C-alpha cells in the first residue's frame, strides 16, 4: 500500500510535469487551447478508469482488475513517452549541468512580486476548488437526509454522478477557457472565471444550503454545472498564466515550484475544511454554510491576487491583453 502511495505518486509527478512542460515548448500564442486539450486527459482518465474498474471488479476480482488497469496505463504511458518531445533547447545549451536541475527560490524575488502573488492566487484557487469537488457527494447525502451507509447500498449513486457531471462540465469549460484565453489574455480570462466561480459558490451553493425545504435539487445541479464549467480554467489555465511570467526554458521550474507550494497548501487546507464542518453546530445541510463561505472567500482572495498581478504588470488599461 505504501508502495502504491510512494511509487505511483512519484510516477504521477514524473508524468504530469514533463507532459505539461512539453506542450509549452510547442505552443505559445495558442498555449491556452493546447493545454486545455492536454488536460482534458485528466477528466478522461477520471471518467474512464472508474468505469473500467466498476465493470471488472465483480467479474475478475481485485488483483486482475488492477493488472488490466496497469496494462491500459502502460499503453497510455507508451504513447506519452513516444510523442512528448521538447523543442526549445535548454537555457545554457550544451553547457547544461546538474546545477541547472536544482530548484530555486530566486524566482519569487524577481523585483515585481508577480510570481509570488500569482502563487498565492494559485494556492487560494486550489484551496477553494477542492472543497466543492470533495464535499459535493457528502453534501448531497446530508441534503437528502440519506443514511450514512447509503454509499454502499447505491442509494447515493446520484451523489457520485454529480461529480461526474462536474467533471464533464469542467472538461468542456477547460477547452473554452483555453480558447478564449489565447484571444483575450490568460490573466484576463482567469480573472473573469474566478469572478464567476465566486458567483456560483455564493449565489447558487450558499442559497441551496441556507434555504430550508427546497422542493428539488435544481439549484444544486445548476451550481454543479456552472461551477464545473467556470472552474475548468482553475486547472488548465493556471500553468499557462505561470508560463507567461517566464521564458520557456524555465517553465518547468516555475510550474513545479508553484505547485510545490500548492502541495503544502492542499495539505493544510484539509484540516481547515474539516474543522469548519466540525465547528458549525447544526445538523443536516446547514452544516455546510461555513465551508461554502470559506470557499467563496478563497475565490475572492484569488481574484484580488490575479487583479493585482495584472495591474502591476500591465497598468490600469482594462482592455490590454494579458
Amino acid at each position, binding site marked *: *500500500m505504501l*508502495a502504491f*502511495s*510512494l511509487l*505511483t*505518486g*512519484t*510516477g*504521477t*509527478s*514524473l508524468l*504530469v*510535469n*514533463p*507532459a505539461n*512542460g*512539453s506542450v509549452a515548448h*510547442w*505552443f505559445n500564442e*495558442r498555449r491556452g487551447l493546447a493545454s486545455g*486539450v*492536454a488536460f*482534458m*486527459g*485528466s477528466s478522461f*482518465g*477520471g471518467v474512464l478508469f472508474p468505469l473500467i474498474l*466498476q465493470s471488472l*471488479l465483480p467479474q475478475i476480482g*481485485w*488483483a486482475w482488475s*488492477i493488472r488490466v488497469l496497469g496494462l491500459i496505463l502502460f499503453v*497510455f*504511458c507508451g*504513447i*506519452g513517452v513516444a*510523442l512528448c*518531445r*521538447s523543442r*526549445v533547447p*535548454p537555457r*545554457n*545549451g550544451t553547457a547544461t549541468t546538474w546545477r*541547472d*536541475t*536544482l530548484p530555486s527560490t530566486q524566482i519569487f524575488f524577481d523585483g515585481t512580486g508577480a510570481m509570488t502573488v500569482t502563487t498565492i492566487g494559485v494556492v487560494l484557487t486550489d484551496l477553494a476548488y477542492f472543497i466543492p*469537488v*470533495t464535499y459535493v457527494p457528502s453534501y448531497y447525502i446530508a441534503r437528502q437526509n440519506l443514511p450514512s451507509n447509503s454509499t454502499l447500498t447505491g442509494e447515493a449513486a446520484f451523489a*457520485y454522478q454529480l461529480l461526474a457531471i462536474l*467533471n464533464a462540465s469542467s472538461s468542456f469549460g477547460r477547452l473554452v477557457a483555453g480558447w478564449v484565453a489565447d484571444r483575450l489574455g490568460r490573466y484576463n480570462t482567469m480573472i473573469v472565471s474566478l469572478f464567476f466561480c465566486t458567483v456560483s459558490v455564493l449565489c447558487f451553493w450558499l442559497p441551496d444550503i441556507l434555504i430550508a425545504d427546497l422542493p428539488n435539487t435544481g439549484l444544486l445541479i445548476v451550481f454543479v454545472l456552472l461551477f464545473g464549467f467556470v472552474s475548468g480554467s482553475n486547472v488548465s489555465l493556471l500553468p499557462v498564466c505561470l508560463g507567461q511570467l517566464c521564458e*520557456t526554458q524555465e*517553465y*518547468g521550474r516555475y510550474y*513545479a515550484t508553484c505547485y510545490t507550494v500548492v*502541495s*503544502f497548501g*492542499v*495539505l493544510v487546507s*484539509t484540516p481547515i475544511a*474539516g474543522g469548519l464542518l466540525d465547528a458549525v453546530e447544526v445538523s443536516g445541510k446547514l452544516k455546510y454554510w461555513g465551508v461554502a463561505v470559506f470557499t467563496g472567500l478563497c475565490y475572492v482572495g484569488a481574484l484580488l491576487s490575479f487583479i493585482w498581478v495584472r495591474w502591476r504588470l500591465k497598468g490600469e488599461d482594462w482592455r490590454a491583453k494579458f
Partner: protein
Amino acid sequence: MTLSSEQDTIQSNLQPPNNEGVHDEKHRPPILRSLSHTITSTDVTYPEGGREAWSVVFGAFCGICASIGIYNSCGIFEAYMSAELLSHESKSSVGWIFGIYAFVTWFFGVQIGPTFDAIGPTALMVAGTVCTLGGIFALSACTGQSVSRTRLHPKQHLSFPVIIGELALSFMHC
C-alpha cells in the same frame, strides 16, 4: 532638435563599439562568451500547430490521462479498499494511503520541473511509467495481510487522515 533624432545620434555613437564587440568574440573572457550563448526568448519561435505539435499535445493528453487520471480515480480505490480489502482497518489508515499519494504527486515536482528544463521529457516519462506501473502492480498484489506493517498512525485523530483521504478521493485537481 527633436527627441527622435537625438536618440539616433546616441545610437549611431553606440554602434561602432558594439560591432567591435562582436568581432572580438574570441578575445572575450570565457564567462562573457558563455553568456552570449545563452538562448533568450527572442531566439525562440513556436510552431503553434501542425501535425508534430498536435501529436505532442496528444502525447501529453495520454501522459496526463495515465497520471492525473489515476489521481481522479482514487475514490474507487478508496471505496473498494475500505469496504473489501481493509475492512478491519480504520478509515484513517486507509486515508493515509491516499494522503501520501496526493502529497507526493505535487511535492516531487519541485525537483522534476527543473530537471525537465535541463534534459527534456523522455527520460523522466520513462521513469514515470516504471514508477506508476510498479506501484499499480504492487497494489494488485495487495491483500489484507500486508497492511498491518504499513499502518501508519493507528491512534491518530480521525478527522485529519479521513479528510486527506477524501481529498485524494475527490476529483480534486481535475
